[in-house]
């Protein structure tokens, strides 16, 4: 695919006239998706999808186009040529864009992952074998993901990886279940079986009679998956420069009145150790890391090229959405084995669900407990918890009320597949928090 993309890019570059500049972004996947319910196959299929987005620039005027590709060079060139012509026809209607910024220093890179994936049927057989006698629900996604960038200045960037992502839960009844995830580049049968065994063990606890608790403030332990989701809200108008400069960020208190998070909170965008491409769609390379919050203090925003131009600062490789794709949180000092004892009495939260801002300027986030969440007394897991709604600010939860973070962290690969299979990831510890507010 890389060679094919470069061929198309070269051909299109030849079709430019005068001072025109062209940028191209390629996106493609060849994925298998197998969906399970009740340890049977619900829907199974494959998706082969590739497309190119282009930005035709003349001076400070530009317009964008996008087309899907067939993989047939003649047909694709024909589509791209027609698209280029249509976009070119738009330019005279358009004013200059004062916020246009694209990479002009040529920095070409290539990252091509090796395909070590099992044949889809092999993994599916393993999953169904392990799920026999259980109620297994979820999805196995696997295949190649590709991204490419090219411009008429000669820059070429390529990223491809072959990954799998099994996202599943084991159900007891109604909403009582254990959630699991296994993702990576190599299917390890032993590793998968260890995860299944751990989930099956937790399922035995799920089968105990559930506890309902009244709304109020409780000590909680948030496992890494829950921490990932809670902090992941900051990808929605939290980290981005545009949200900061237009006062819409959920971290507004940090920039307006200097509010800090706990000194143990250090967050960065770590592209070097993530699984995403190291370039963004205007051709800028991402730095290895961008410090976002350091020991509780705000350090940097994620800055897209447009925001950089608008606000007169340097871009740091962020995409248009200015969200983190490889979020990393520094580990803490609490050994995982001590968590239950330190929690003493409270709620052990493995997963949370359906988060939203309930008061964005105040950093207040609401959501639900979900899957394996337990009531704990005197350091012992007593019973599964009936779902509870929380409504708590990040400044409390990861500020004054944060007791500590675990020494151990988990690397979580995002299973999301809305506009194609995600290459985002998070590496985060668990968090012990006091007085976490539940309101329903």
């Amino acid at each position, binding site marked *: 695919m890389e060679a094919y993309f470069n061929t198309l890019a070269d051909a299109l570059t030849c079709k430019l006239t005068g001072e025109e500049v062209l940028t191209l972004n390629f996106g493609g996947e060849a994925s298998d998706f197998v969906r399970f*319910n009740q340890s049977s196959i619900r829907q199974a299929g494959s998706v*082969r999808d590739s497309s190119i987005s282009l930005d035709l620039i003349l001076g400070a005027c530009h317009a964008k186009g996008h087309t899907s590709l067939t993989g047939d060079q003649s047909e694709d060139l024909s589509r791209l040529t027609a698209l280029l012509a249509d976009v070119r026809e738009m330019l005279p209607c358009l004013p200059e864009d004062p916020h246009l910024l694209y990479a002009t220093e040529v920095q070409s890179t290539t990252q091509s992952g090796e395909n070590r994936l099992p044949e889809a049927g092999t993994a599916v057989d393993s999953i169904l074998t392990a799920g026999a006698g259980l109620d297994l*629900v979820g999805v196995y996604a696997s295949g190649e993901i590709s991204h490419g960038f090219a411009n008429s200045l000669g820059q070429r960037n390529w990223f491809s990886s072959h990954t799998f992502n099994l996202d599943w839960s084991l159900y007891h009844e109604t*909403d009582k279940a254990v959630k699991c995830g296994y993702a990576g580049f190599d299917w390890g049968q032993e590793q998968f079986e260890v995860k299944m065994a751990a989930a099956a063990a937790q399922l035995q606890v799920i089968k105990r009679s559930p506890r309902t608790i009244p709304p109020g403030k409780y000590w909680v332990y948030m496992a890494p998956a829950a921490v990932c989701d809670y902090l992941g809200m900051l990808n929605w108008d939290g980290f981005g420069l545009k949200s900061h400069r237009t*006062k819409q960020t959920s971290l507004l208190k940090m920039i307006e009145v200097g509010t800090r998070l706990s000194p143990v909170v250090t967050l960065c965008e770590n592209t070097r150790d993530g699984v995403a491409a190291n370039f963004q769609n205007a051709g800028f390379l991402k730095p290895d890391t961008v410090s976002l919050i350091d020991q509780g203090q705000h350090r940097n925003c994620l800055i897209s090229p447009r925001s950089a131009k608008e606000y007169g600062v340097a871009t740091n490789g962020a995409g248009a959405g200015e969200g983190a794709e490889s979020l990393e949180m520094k580990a803490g000092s609490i050994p995982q084995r001590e968590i239950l004892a330190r929690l003493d009495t409270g709620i052990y939260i493995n997963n949370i669900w359906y988060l939203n801002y309930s008061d964005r300027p105040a950093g207040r986030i609401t959501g639900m407990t979900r899957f394996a969440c337990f009531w704990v007394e005197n350091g012992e897991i007593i019973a599964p918890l009936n779902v509870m709604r929380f409504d708590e600010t990040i400044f409390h939860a990861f500020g004054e009320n944060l007791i500590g973070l675990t020494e151990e962290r988990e690397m979580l690969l995002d299973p999301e597949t809305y506009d194609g299979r995600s290459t985002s990831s998070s590496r985060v510890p668990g968090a012990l928090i006091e007085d976490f507010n539940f309101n329903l």
Partner: protein
Amino acid sequence: MFDQVIERFRNVAPRAEFWSLRMVSSRQEYIEVRQDVLQPVTTARDIGVMITVIHRGGFGYAATSNLTESGLKAAASQACAWAERSRKIGILDFSTITMPAPTGEYRSPIRIPWQSVPLPERIDRAVSECARLKTDDHIVDWETSLWFTEEDHLFLTSTGGESLQHFELLTPGMSVTANEGSETVSRSFGGFDLGRQGGWEVLEEIAFADQPPVLTEEVIELLAAPNCPTGSMNLLLDASQMYLQIHESIGHPLELDRILGDERNYAGTSFVTPEMLGTYRYGSDLLNITFDPTIRDEFASYAYDDDGSKAEKECIIRNGILERGLGGITSQARLGLPGVANSRACSWNRPPIDRMANLNLEPGVSSFEDMVAAVEQGVYMKSNNSWSIDDSRNKFQFGCEYGRVIRDGQLAEVVKKPNYKGISATFWRNLEMTGNQDTFFVMGTPHCGKGEPNQAIRVGHATPACLFSNVDIFGGE
């Protein structure tokens, strides 16, 4: 292009008990103006097919953007392979389902085709409306957007089915944000909740040009407003919030595939069980909910769903009693219960699953003034800005941009950050009054997310304003 692809496909069609070919071709244009700066105008084209095979009980699909004969052949082969692989380990024997063979057409009703308006005029409209939004120094961000989509859906079956549906859709938006210190408030119109079928005329139908003075005045009001009060009281919801209340706590819990457990790993399950269909009191006598694919300009009107079932209006909840769930032909077969034609996919690259389409609350007889007059103590809320609900679709919490206290039958002071929470199973039984046709508005969102793999699809919700009693209301920090 469609004819070419059909011809190529007929040369490589799989040998199977049943196959279908679903081709979707779309063209989109996105115009956005932010702080009076035109953002890059984008035109997008996408075309691909999904081939579905049912054979010896198994089901498989393959989607591809490669529309060459070899690409279609490869996809057909993949679909067959998945059908074979899954046939003894599938959730059901798909060969027991008689798949529809639709023949017919649909076209969105259009008065002023989008393409008949020159691009400079389309851009100018967005620019000129945006220019009316910066009316105060406290306003720190303002924008307008016009998102146009044109889609053609071809559906062929091995049993002689052939349908062609053409959709044209517009999702306009406008928003303004004001700030003072660490307080920021916004007012918006459309953006993600006012999608409709139609062309340029949609802007006139939704009174797009009337909104700037309303939004700019209200956002400044909000900045100076007190926090929404806390307490259990009456709640009057505008259509711009009602649509999402319906969506989250009626639409999703009634999707039959959720009731069957398909979504339990992702979007969740439901508090509704099959036994409730026909008898369960979902809401007060005033609650009448319909699945209606026939409203001419509503976002998700169509003639056939993506499994080829003919779409017809059905009553889902009648006088508060749950009658029917929202499930297409596969779910109906699995449950042995009737449903509706709502087996839908967001595009060619995702398989159809049960999706609410147009789900509407039928208007009542109360005027807005009647509903206000009926309230001793309460809050009126409009324009959703926050939504969250549990995985069984029961414990919800919503927030709106704008609230007004209602006191002794009169609208009183504006309040900011109005939020409310509740439980679906009891909330709808507290429906006290439903608004008349004057309060009825056709809403539509392009962003309903569900499914594994994930897909975001458009849905429509037409609803009047409604009054509820004994709702837990609260404000911001």
